[in-house]
């Protein structure tokens, strides 16, 4: 079965991105497909490479990056939500005239259409938020 995943809360403040991560791991382990995870609302903050959690805590961004790369998951950050919250890739930074970018490896910024498309193309849409 194909799962589409929405993560709609930021890391650390809410447990949502952790629950989503464990769900995706379990789904893959059971032989299901997870073609895309869509990060929305404060969930876009999962994709910043500038977070520095203490060494004795999980690194949410690195966990997602690793899982995404291992299983070819499309980790999409919503552009509209990202722009509000200051999350940029190189492309967006130059388009918007900003002097830095902060998106982590394995993530990409794209539109809300990717969320709808995921809903159309997967068998089950799971939302993790608050």
């Amino acid at each position, binding site marked *: *079965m194909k*799962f589409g995943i929405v993560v*709609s809360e930021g890391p650390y403040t809410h*447990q*949502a991105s952790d*629950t989503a991560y*464990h*769900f995706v*791991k*379990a*789904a893959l*382990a*059971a032989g*299901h497909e997870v073609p895309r995870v869509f990060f929305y609302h404060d969930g876009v903050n999962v994709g910043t490479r500038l977070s520095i959690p203490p060494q004795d805590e999980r690194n949410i961004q690195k966990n997602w990056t690793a899982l995404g790369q291992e299983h070819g998951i499309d980790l999409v950050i919503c552009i509209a939500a990202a722009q509000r919250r200051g999350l940029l890739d190189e492309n967006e930074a130059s388009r918007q005239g900003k002097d830095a970018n902060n998106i982590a490896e394995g993530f990409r910024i794209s539109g809300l259409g990717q969320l709808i498309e995921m809903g159309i193309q997967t068998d*089950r*849409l*799971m*939302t*993790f*938020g*608050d």
Partner: protein
Amino acid sequence: MSTLHTVNKSPFATTTLASCLNHALEGDAILLIEDGVYGGVVGTELAKALAAAKGVSLYVLSGDLTARGIDTARLVKGMKPIDYAGFVALATEHDRAQAWL
């Protein structure tokens, strides 16, 4: 056709669990996750409503339960603890998932 409902809020903080219970249909499942697991403890007002939900199966995510120091013995009768693999299985067994945020 049935739905897997997930509830991630403590019923003492919001009315989310009550609202979910009000909209769950026969054959549906409710899974308590994150702070939602506090709603599964016996002896509370909402536990009565949970126990009265006819034809709705009740589950709780065991990792969230033990993380919060709650023994499965304190759960509402009939509520089953499951792990993430069980969560995935529930999602496949129902036709859709609805997150009560």
